[in-house]
C-alpha cells in the first residue's frame, strides 16, 4: 500500500504554503522557486518533494527542466482546512436554534 503524506502536514509549514502561492500563478522550475527564499536550495528541494508526494504539486518535464504546477484538484482538501472549525460553530448554532425553538413554543 502506498501511504501518501498528509496534505495538512504539508501545509502546516509556512515555506510550503508560500511555495503553493507562488506556483498558483504560474508553473515554475525548482530554481525559480528557490530564488524566492533565503533558505538553502536543498531545503527548498525537500519542501518540493513533500508537496509532490502529497500530490499538491505536479511535475512536468520540459527539455532539461522540470516545471512544477499546482494540482488544483487536491487543493480542495486544503480549502477544507477550515472545515472542522466551521463544523464546530455549526454544531453550536444548531444547538442554539433547537433550544430557542423550544422557548418559542413555551
Amino acid at each position: 500500500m502506498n501511504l501518501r503524506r498528509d496534505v495538512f502536514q504539508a501545509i502546516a509549514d509556512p515555506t510550503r504554503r508560500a511555495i503553493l502561492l507562488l506556483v498558483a500563478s504560474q508553473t515554475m522550475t525548482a530554481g525559480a522557486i528557490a530564488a524566492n527564499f533565503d533558505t538553502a536550495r536543498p531545503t527548498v528541494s525537500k519542501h518540493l518533494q513533500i508537496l509532490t508526494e502529497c500530490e499538491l504539486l505536479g511535475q512536468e518535464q520540459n527539455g532539461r527542466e522540470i516545471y512544477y504546477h499546482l494540482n488544483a484538484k487536491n487543493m480542495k482538501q486544503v480549502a477544507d482546512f477550515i472545515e472542522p472549525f466551521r463544523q464546530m460553530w455549526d454544531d453550536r448554532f444548531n444547538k442554539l436554534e433547537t433550544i430557542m425553538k423550544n422557548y418559542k413554543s413555551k
Partner: protein
Amino acid sequence: MELKTKINAEDGKQDLVITREFDLPIELLFKAYAEAEIVEQWMETKVLKLESKKHGSYQYETTDPKGNKHRFSGVIHEFIPKQRIIKTFEMEGTPFGVQLEVYEFEKLTEDTCKLNMHVVYESVAQRDQVLQLPFAQGINMAHNRIQEIIGKLK
C-alpha cells in the same frame, strides 16, 4: 447544499467572519446571547458571570472529559439589544491571546434572522493557531477511533 454556517478567513489576515442564518425571530437569537442560563445550554459551559451590559464582563468555565477546568472570559464594550454586541474573549492561561468579537444581529423576516460575527486576533499566526484548534481535536478523535478499531482486531 447551501451551508448554514459560513466562515470567511482570508489567507494572511488576522481576522475572520462567521455568518449564520437562523430560523428564529431576532428576539430569541439575542436572548440566547444575553441570558446566562441559555448560554450555559448551547455553549455547554458553566457561566460564572455574565453582565449583559456596556462595560460589563463575563466568565465561563468548562470541564473537559478528563475533568480539567478551563476558564474563558472577557469584557463587554457594547450591548445594544437585537443589534450589536462587542466584546473581548480570551482563554485564560493559554498562549492564544485576546480576541475582539463584533456580533451584528440582523432581522430578515419575522421568523428568521442573521448573525454576523467578526473576530479580530492579535496576529495572523494567532488566528491560524486558533483555527487549527478544533482541527487538532478532530485528529485526536480520529486517532482514538483508529485505536479502538485496531484494538478490536487484536
